[in-house]
């Protein structure tokens, strides 16, 4: 079961230069705030897709829910 630390590491590895603050009380539901220069010029939809790309096929599975807030630095 992934921990908040795992989720943070995955996001930061997938989006170079990003910073992710991840919280979870149960290692199933996660809440993340991701700051990345790579988000600049992208719509919110596209920003969230970049983050989701770190969890191909796992959202809805091991990662039950990922509440997401994306920002540029």
């Amino acid at each position, binding site marked *: 079961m992934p921990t908040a630390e795992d989720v943070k590491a995955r996001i930061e590895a997938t989006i170079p230069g990003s910073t992710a603050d991840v919280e*979870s009380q149960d290692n199933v539901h996660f*809440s*993340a*705030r991701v700051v990345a220069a790579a988000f600049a010029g992208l719509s919110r*939809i596209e920003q*969230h*897709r970049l983050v*989701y790309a770190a969890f191909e096929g796992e959202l*809805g599975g091991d990662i039950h829910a990922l509440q997401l807030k994306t920002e540029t630095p």
Partner: protein
Amino acid sequence: MSEQAPHSNPIRDAIAQAIDENPVILFMKGTPDQPRCGFSARTAGALQALGAPFAAVDILPDPRIREELSALSNWPTIPQLFVNGELVGGADIVGEMFESGELAKTLGVEQPEERPVEEPAVGPRPLGIDNRLS
């Protein structure tokens, strides 16, 4: 391989048609009156708070609906809100847009009087336990 028709995917076609025919359509778990997931409840609630008419599709009765929807929209999670054929977002994006007034603008309706803008800015919301799938 040649036997497979390129367009024999009735579920995906039906989803595409529903998105095409309904200016505002929400794919969710449960129904607006009986949502089966906290994220779906919140998203339907935002639309209801704005008094915007919307179509709603419950994706739970058949797992293929969700599979085909996500394949079509390139979006892994539920709910999904479409306006004029375009994916607007899931619960987080719709929630942000509701609070900023952007959702009302997108839907062409008035933002209600009591705007939640005066709420103190707080950090990430705590995770609710109401989000579990049943």
